[in-house]
């Protein structure tokens, strides 16, 4: 026993000394020149907006402000100046009137004194219509969870690379409870994002319910995207479910699928290789993406019409 205790103590000593080897490494930043950061997403559904910052270094102190409010942000459409966006808040430049248009090739030019000019060009594509949105059955998974299988029919444009983002939204009515004695007084409509799943191989792996896909497997074809919606989403409060298909630019697609993986890899950096995020800003970093969207609706037959007052 005495020998065992000696051995155990020695082992603990070795383990303790092993795991405590930590040493600072002298590190000189390869550059001290900060980059212009441009983040922008043009969609026909919203006003033109561009966020401008400077990049930060690991040596910067916490709380440092990196917004760039002295930039000149110009938007060109097919080579002609559309608008110079005014600065409306910290690092945000937004048009008060202009929304992007389909079929236009947009160029952003961001000039920042003492930092140079960052540019990026992306076309805003035409929407790809949703040809149908239907429920086709009920499936039960390994955990005995029931889901409604739905098909969203699309027709990919042939002979071109296309990238998509599919989101589903739920239109519901929530009952407002005012008092226990007088339980239901009113119903309030609201919209919520639906977390859905899919085993469809067209969807990009690893994006956990965020349905991005390219047309690599369906180029030029008519295709039924298979999406599973949990059955409880079809309760009697839900009036309908809306499928929104965004036809997005290539770089934005790649940026979007890389982003969650990037953050996962940062959290697990001991075990995972870093994920490098797509950047399409020349002389800077960030993303300039575009999207045009089409929709279709699936109505819920379980839905009870909202009643203003129930006795």
């Amino acid at each position, binding site marked *: 026993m005495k020998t065992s205790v000696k051995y*155990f103590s*020695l*082992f603990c000593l*070795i383990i303790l*000394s*092993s795991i405590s*080897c*930590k*040493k*600072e*490494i002298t*590190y000189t*930043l390869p550059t001290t020149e*900060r*980059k212009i*950061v441009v*983040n*922008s*997403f043009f969609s026909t559904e919203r006003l033109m907006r561009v*966020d401008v*910052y400077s*990049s*930060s*270094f*690991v*040596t910067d*102190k916490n709380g440092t402000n*990196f917004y760039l409010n002295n930039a000149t942000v110009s938007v060109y459409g097919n080579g002609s100046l559309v608008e110079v966006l005014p600065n409306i808040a910290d690092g945000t430049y937004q048009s008060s009137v202009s929304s992007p248009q389909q079929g236009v090739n947009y160029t952003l030019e961001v000039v920042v004194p003492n930092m140079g000019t960052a540019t990026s060009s992306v076309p805003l594509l035409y929407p790809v219509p949703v040809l149908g949105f239907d429920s086709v059955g009920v499936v039960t998974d*390994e*955990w005995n969870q029931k889901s409604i299988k739905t098909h969203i029919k699309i027709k990919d444009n042939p002979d071109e690379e296309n990238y998509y983002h599919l*989101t589903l939204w739920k239109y519901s009515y929530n009952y407002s409870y005012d008092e226990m004695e007088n339980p239901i007084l009113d119903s309030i409509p609201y919209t919520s*994002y639906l977390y859905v799943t899919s085993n469809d*191989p067209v969807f990009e*792996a*690893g994006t956990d319910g*965020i349905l991005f896909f*390219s047309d*690599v497997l369906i180029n030029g074809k008519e295709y039924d995207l298979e999406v599973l919606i949990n059955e409880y989403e079809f309760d009697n409060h839900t009036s309908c479910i809306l499928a929104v298909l965004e036809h997005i630019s290539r770089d934005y697609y790649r940026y979007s699928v*890389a*982003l969650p*993986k*990037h*953050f*996962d*890899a940062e959290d*697990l*950096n*001991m*075990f*995972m*290789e*870093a*994920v*490098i*995020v*797509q950047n399409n800003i020349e002389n800077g*970093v*960030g*993303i300039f*993406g575009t999207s045009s969207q089409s929709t279709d609706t699936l109505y819920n037959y379980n839905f009870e019409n909202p009643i203003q007052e129930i006795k």
Partner: protein
Amino acid sequence: MIRTYLSLLLLGISFLLSAQKYTISGYITDIENGEKLIGANVYNASTLQGTTTNNYGFYSLTFPKGKVLFTVSFVGYATYQVEVDLNANKNISVELKPTIEIQEVVVEGRKTEGGVESSQMGLIEIPMKTISNLPVLFGEADIIKAIQLLPGVQSGSEGMSGMYVRGGGPDQNLILLDGVPVYNVNHLFGFFSVFNSDAIQNVKLIKGGFPAQYGGRLSSVLDISMKEGNAKKFQGSGAVGIIAARLTLEGPIGENTSYIVSGRRTYVDVLMYPFELLYAKELGYKTMRTGYFFHDVNAKVNHKFSDRSRLYFSTYLGKDKFYMNEAYQSDYDGNNYKSKAGFWWGNITSALRWNYAISDQLFSNTTATFSRYRLSTGMENYTNGSKDMALEYYSGILDWGGKVDFDYYPNPNHTIKFGFGETYHTYSPGALAFSYDIDDGTSEKGTFGNANLHTHELGLYAEDDFRIGSLVKVNAGLRWSAFKVRDKFYNGLEPRVSARFLITEKWSAKGSYALMYQYINLLATAKIGLPTDLWVPATDILTPQKAQQYSLGSVYEINADFEFSTEGFYKTMENLVEYKEGAGIFSLQYDWESNVALGKGWSYGLEFLLMKKLGNLTGWVGYTISKSDRLFNREGQEISRGQKFPFTYDRRHDVSIVISYKLNKNIDMGATWVFGTGNATTLGYEFYPAYNPDNNHYGYYSEITNYESRNNFRMPAYHRLDIGFNFHKEKKWGTRTWSFSVYNAYNRKNPFFINWESDPYTGEKKLYQYSLFPIMPSLSYQFEF
């Protein structure tokens, strides 16, 4: 090109068959224990024509009628020489006597198959004695760590048993234990290899100029042969170290059979058990056990039916296990609850081999093999003895194989090898099995994840090691490999050629070319080799890996003690497999094939090796300068923005100095010093905000790290000195040895992992490196009887 090549090969073989001479054949063994001697030189000292023994100690030499000065030599053994009047076929089996003092060995005449003479390139054999003398971590001699000290072999991370040969990945090494592939060579995440040095007889590493008999991997072949067991007397050896103990028993069974059994186990968990009991008692648990151990067993038995026929059966079983078990009685409901959780991985390999000398010139070897690697992690919950819930994640690979190899010795100028083999692989690339009880009394069971994949791998080869005149020796061969997976059938011809030109008697120039296919891939999630890495096959989506390697080199025998060799290599690799950025073992819910990227790789370098083979002082100095890059730029599979980036184990400079010195009869010492350019790693220092549209569903407001490229940063250089002393003493019952080792003798803090960390007070970020092993003394007691 291929047709011409085949025609020439067949023409050569048929020409040889027409020769009519007498043959001397037999086995070369150790006189003390009957162990076969692999690679012993057998030759006619008058003409210096000869050969070497094969992996089973067999040789065959055919000469014209007349006097032959038959000579057998092997490093560490007294040379055997006898004049033979050759007027008929003769069987001469020789038992060589080991020399106690190596410096007393006198090699008469010239060796027929030294480094200068051989046509083989990139081949290094390390004697087990040298491996045993090297200073070691925790007192455990380690074959893989010894191999890492050779030029052209990188060690990966601190303390790990991974092997990266000439810019290749860890899956590109064909590691054979008695001819059976071993898929995971790591115990304890790579701090120890699975090979118990007590049970190993011979270790051979081939880095380039691969003979056609080997196939299936791109970068190296590590051929390890187990001992056969002492055929003369019962013998035992063992050791007790800081964390593990081992015992080996061997001996004869009757006249024609011998066996060896060797086992090893760590015992930290056993030592901790009393403390766990006390702790469990304090917490009110019935039992509470947490621990880790690994064990392995090597066993081999062989039987000699006749001088021509021998049967061998060898097996290896190894396992690593982390476990956490607890049991308690609830105060609330009085029920007895028990839970078991664990994480284990291990290999099983077996080989049944029949050696048969069909004639004096034709030797056959028929082998049936089995190899299994399995990783499993899971948990089970019980209430009052009945299982409520079980969950198990498992992955692995299982092989059944068979092969027949022939060695044909038509005359001293030709050694022809040919054969074929087939392996049936079953891959389990990650699945989750579960069962649980539902409140209504029913239960649910199921499995999801990746389905098993079954594949067939075939190989057919022929090679001839032949002389052209007195200056040129060539090893030319051709291998045909094929692979069937799902409905896809891959096949390819793999030409191999290796040649040497004798510039002077002691100086030769060499060149080689090899084309290799690899039908198996290792998907590694972590930066370090974890047992969770998945073995997966080539599929209809993943085309097989392919490599071409060109080598040029020279060997110079300075004197009987010293040999200097240099080799330059250029290797191209296609269809290399990696997880796509961000994918890995954590993406279990997705089909692994959709998570994989295919790319290319290049590596080139120069290796220098100065070896001292004889005398009290033996060892080597090795230096490698090399570069290795990767490119993954296929659409949708880009890594590092589709730009070329350095391989993680790209190491510009790599130096190793290995010394083994016998001070006197009772004391010997070993020392190793290694230096390597720091490992490449990916480090970001610049950040920018992620785009956050108002319909964004990630909820990210985080900052993106702007990485320039993968592996853009070099960690500080790695260097380390290890020293070990062995103190031997003869006892009445045998020999005892106290081994004292110091790992990392000057306490160098070598980087294992680097990370930015914020100062808790100022918020200032600094870059820190974490090191695994400071100075680590260890002591072990070894005995032999």
